[in-house]
C-alpha cells in the first residue's frame, strides 16, 4: 500500500514516496521531496527532515517546550496553521491527510499541549490515518522529575500510535522525524509521534538528516501470494451470490479505480463500510451503499445472504458486523488487507490475501476468468433496494427534517464536495442521505466516534484542498449541536485563515443519538441528553466573524444553502430540525444485520 498511499492524490507527475536521498541522486526526479538543507540546531534538523519528506502544512499550537521547532519553522516553506486547541490541530491534520493522501502533521508543546492531542491521535489510530504528531518535551535532564509541564507523552500515546519515539539527541532527531513521517504511511497507515525534549531541539548540530525511510520490515510486499489469489479467483467464479465489501483501506490505498474495475468487470454487487464510503459510486447500479448498524437495509440483507464476500481493506468492526455469529453466515470470506494481523481477527478468512488493496484487486481481476453466474442475485439485490429504500417522513408542517437538509446540500453541490461531520445522528444522516461518488470526499470519525471532529476536520480538509490547488471544491461540515459546541472555537481559525467552509448545524437541542437510544432502550428517560439551553449558533458565528444564518422552515432551506455556499469564507447555518427524528434503519448493537429495524417499534 505504501507506494500508492505515498502518492499525493493529484495524480500525475509525483513519483512514489521516494526518499530525499533518491531525489538528490536523480536531479530529474520530479518528486517534490527535497534533500535536507544545512542545519545548525536539532530544531532546524527537524524542519529540514519534514521539508525533505514533503510535508507542506502543519497544524498546531505554540508553547515553551516546542518553541525551538516553531522558531525553525519561521524560515520554512511549510505552512503553519495555528489552531485554537490542540485537539483541533490533531483532527485538522488527520482530515488533511485523508483529503490530501499524505501524512498530516500536527504539533503541540509538552504536558497539556501533548495531552490535548491525545483524542485526535487516538482517532487517527482507529481509522488508520497517516499522521505525524510532534510534541515538545521538558529538557532531558528534567524528564521523570515532574518538571513544569511534563507528561510522559511517549507512555501516554503508546497504545494509540503505530509507533512513537523519544528523540535522543540533536544529531539524530532529524532522521527520527523523517523515519516517523514515512512510517506513518508505510503499510497500514497510522499516527506516529516524536517527543522532542527542548535540549535536543536547542542543541547545535551540523548533521543534515539523511533520506527518510520507514524502518526495516514495516513496508510490506504489496502483492498477495499468487497461489492464494488463484484459489480466491476460483471461489469467486463459482459463487452464486458474490458481494464486494470495500472498506477504508480501499480509500487509504488509493484503490478505488481498481475496486470499480473489479466489481464492474464481473457484475458483482458492492457494499462499503462506513469508512469505505466514496470508494464506489453510490449511484452505480451495482452499489448497495454502506452496511452496518445504520447502513442501508439492502446492504445488510446482501451481507446476510451472500455466499462469497470479497472484503477489501476492512477490519470487520462490530458496528459493521453486528453479532459475529450472524455476520455473512453463509459466506466464504476472501479478505484482502495490507495488515496480516487483520486476517481472521474478527471474522475468519477462508481466503486470506495479504497485500496492497489496489495491487491485489488487479491480481484478482486478472485471475478471475469468467464472471460468476450472479444474474438472479443481482435481481434480488435490486428488489431489496426497491423494498427498503432510505426514506423519511416529511410532514407538511414543521419541524424541518434533518435528512431534507442533507439532501438539499447534496443537490446544490458537485460530486467532489468534501463532507466532514461530528458524531451522532447528524453523522448518520450525512452518510445516508448524501450520494457519495468519489474517494476522499467523506471525512468522519469512524472507529473512535469523536464528537467535535467536524469543524477542525473541515479546516484541515479545506487547507488540503487549497494546497492541492483545488480551491473550487466545496467543504461542508454537518455537525450536531452537541458536537459543534465541543470544538467550535476552531471557527476562529477558519475566519482568520479565510477558509471557505460551510457548517450546517443540525440542531435538535438534544444530544440526539443518546436521546434515540434512551427512547429505544432506556424507557425514554432523557438523562443528561436534553440541551435545551443551546446558544444561538448564527449569532455565535457572527461573533467569530463568520456568516451566521438560522433556518426553521422548509422553504428557507434552499436559499440558506445557496447563500452559505456562495459566501466566500466560513458560514454557519443553524438548522432547527425535528428533535424527535430518529436514525433508521438500525441494527441493534450485537444484533443480526438482516434483522435491521425500519421503525422504532421494531427495536
Amino acid at each position, binding site marked *: 500500500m505504501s507506494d500508492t498511499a505515498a502518492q499525493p492524490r493529484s495524480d500525475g507527475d509525483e513519483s512514489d514516496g521516494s526518499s530525499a536521498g533518491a531525489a538528490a541522486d536523480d536531479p530529474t526526479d520530479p518528486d517534490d521531496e527535497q534533500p535536507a538543507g544545512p542545519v545548525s540546531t536539532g530544531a532546524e534538523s527537524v524542519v529540514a527532515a519534514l521539508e525533505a519528506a514533503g510535508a507542506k502544512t502543519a497544524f498546531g499550537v505554540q508553547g515553551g517546550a516546542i518553541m525551538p521547532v516553531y522558531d525553525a519553522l519561521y524560515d520554512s516553506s511549510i505552512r503553519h496553521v495555528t489552531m485554537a486547541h490542540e485537539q483541533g490541530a490533531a483532527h485538522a491534520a488527520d482530515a488533511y491527510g485523508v483529503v490530501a493522501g499524505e501524512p498530516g502533521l500536527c504539533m503541540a508543546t509538552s504536558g497539556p499541549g501533548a495531552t490535548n492531542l491525545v483524542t485526535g491521535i487516538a482517532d487517527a489510530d482507529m481509522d488508520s490515518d497517516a499522521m505525524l504528531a510532534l510534541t515538545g518535551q521538558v529538557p532531558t535532564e528534567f524528564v521523570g522529575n515532574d518538571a513544569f509541564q511534563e507528561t510522559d507523552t511517549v507512555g501516554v500515546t503508546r497504545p494509540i500510535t503505530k509507533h512513537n519515539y523519544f528523540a535522543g539527541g540533536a544529531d539524530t532527531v532529524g532522521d527520527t522525524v523523517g523515519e516517523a513521517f514515512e512510517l506513518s504511511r508505510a503499510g497500514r497507515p497510522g499516527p506516529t509521534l516524536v517527543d522532542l525534549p527542548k535540549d535536543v531541539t536547542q542543541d547545535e548540530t551540523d548533521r543534515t538528516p539523511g533520506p527518510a525511510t520507514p524502518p526495516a520490515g514495516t513496508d510490506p510486499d504489496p502483492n498477495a501470494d499468487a497461489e492464494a489469489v488463484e484459489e480466491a479467483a476460483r471461489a469467486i467464479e463459482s459463487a452464486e451470490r458474490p458481494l464486494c465489501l470495500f472498506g477504508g483501506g480501499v480509500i487509504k490505498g488509493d484503490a478505488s479505480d481498481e475496486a470499480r474495475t473489479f466489481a464492474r468487470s464481473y457484475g458483482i454487487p458492492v457494499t462499503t463500510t462506513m469508512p469505505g464510503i466514496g470508494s464506489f459510486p453510490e449511484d452505480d447500479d451495482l452499489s448497495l451503499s454502506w452496511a452496518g448498524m445504520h447502513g442501508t437495509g439492502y446492504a445488510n440483507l446482501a451481507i446476510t445472504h451472500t455466499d462469497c464476500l470479497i472484503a477489501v481493506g476492512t477490519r470487520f468492526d462490530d458496528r459493521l458486523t453486528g453479532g459475529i455469529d*450472524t455476520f455473512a453466515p453463509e459466506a466464504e470470506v476472501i479478505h484482502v488487507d495490507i495488515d496480516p494481523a487483520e486476517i*481472521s481477527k474478527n471474522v*475468519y478468512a477462508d481466503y486470506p490475501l495479504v497485500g496492497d488493496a489496489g495491487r491485489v484487486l488487479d491480481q484478482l481481476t486478472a485471475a478471475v476468468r469468467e464472471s460468476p453466474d450472479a444474474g438472479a442475485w443481482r435481481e434480488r439485490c435490486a428488489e431489496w433496494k426497491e423494498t427498503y429504500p432510505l426514506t423519511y417522513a416529511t410532514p407538511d408542517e414543521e419541524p424541518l427534517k434533518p435528512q431534507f437538509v442533507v439532501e438539499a446540500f447534496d443537490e446544490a453541490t458537485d460530486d467532489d464536495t468534501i463532507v466532514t461531520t461530528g458524531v451522532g445522528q447528524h453523522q448518520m444522516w450525512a452518510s445516508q442521505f448524501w450520494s457519495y461518488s468519489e474517494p476522499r470526499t467523506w471525512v468522519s470519525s469512524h472507529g473512535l466516534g469523536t464528537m467535535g471532529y467536524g469543524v477542525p476536520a473541515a479546516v484541515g480538509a479545506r487547507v488540503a484542498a487549497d494546497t492541492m490547488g483545488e480551491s473550487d471544491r466545496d467543504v461542508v461540515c454537518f455537525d450536531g449541536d452537541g458536537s459543534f459546541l465541543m470544538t467550535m472555537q476552531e471557527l476562529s481559525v477558519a475566519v482568520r485563515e479565510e477558509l471557505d467552509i460551510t457548517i450546517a448545524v443540525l440542531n435538535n437541542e438534544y444530544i440526539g443519538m443518546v436521546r434515540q437510544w434512551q427512547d429505544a432502550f432506556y424507557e425514554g428517560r432523557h438523562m443528561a441528553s436534553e440541551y435545551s439551553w443551546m446558544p444561538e449558533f448564527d449569532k455565535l458565528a457572527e461573533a467569530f466573524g463568520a456568516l451566521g444564518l438560522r433556518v426553521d422552515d422548509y422553504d428557507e432551506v434552499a436559499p440558506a444553502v445557496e447563500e452559505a455556499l456562495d459566501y466566500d469564507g466560513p458560514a454557519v447555518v443553524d438548522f432547527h430540525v425535528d428533535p424527535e427524528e*430518529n436514525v433508521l434503519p438500525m441494527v441493534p448493537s450485537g444484533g443480526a444485520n438482516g434483522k435491521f429495524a425500519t421503525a422504532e*417499534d421494531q427495536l
Partner: protein
Amino acid sequence: MSGESPDDRADEESTDPRPATDGGSAAGEGPETDSRPMPSEQPGPRERDHPEGRRNLEGIRIDPVVEAEHESRRAVISALVEDEPGVLARVSGLVSRRQFNIESLTVGPTTVDGHSRITMVVEETDPGIDQIEKQMAKLKPVISVGEVAGDAVTSELVLLKVEADDPAAVHAVSEMYDGKTVDAGPETITVELTGDKTDVDSAIGAFERFGIVEIARTGPTALARGNTPTAPGEKPGTAGEPTTHDD
C-alpha cells in the same frame, strides 16, 4: 418513543417540498410526491427470510450440528526484539490491552548487541495464539516472533526460601532436585532450582513440608532444539553478528 413516530406522520400529501430522490427538481423547489415505500409498508425483521448458518466467536462458519469451539492450549512464544527503551512496555501493554491470557514473560539479552529475546508463555486457543504472534510482529522493535516448536528446551529459575528447622532434610531434598543452597542461616535456607515446568512444580511440592517462606520464579525461557531457529528466520547467532533478517 416519546412523541409521534414517523409512521404517524407518514401520510403527507403533495405539500412535500422535498425533491424526489429520482427526480431532478432542486431542493425546496416545489411539491413532489414520494413513491418510496415508508417503513410501515416494508416487511419487518421477522417477516424476512434469514439464512440458517452461523459463525462461532472466532468468526468461523460452523456446521449447525457439529459446533467447533477451539480449546485453549499452552504455547511458548519467542520474540527477538531491538533492545530499546520501552520495548517491554510495548509488548506487555499490547498483551494486556488485548486481554490475552499470559502466563509468564521473561526478557534477556542475546548474543547480539542491541537485541533481546522475549519468551512468553500463553494459554490461548489457536486463533488467539495466531493473533498474539501477528500483533507482536506489528510492533516496530519486534524483529521476529513465532511459536517455539513443541519439543523446545524450556527452563525456569526459582529461588525458594524455606524454614531451617531441619537443615539436613532440606539439603537432601535440594540434592534430589539438583538444587543449590545459595544462602543458609539459623532460621531460613534459600535454594536455587532450575528446570522445566514439571520439574520445578514437583520440587516446590517437595519443599512445602519445610514451610516455604518466600518464593521467586522467573517463568520459563526457551530455545528450540537442534538447528531449528527459535524465532522464525533467526540465524545461528554468534556475538556481534546479525541474528535474523535479510535487510
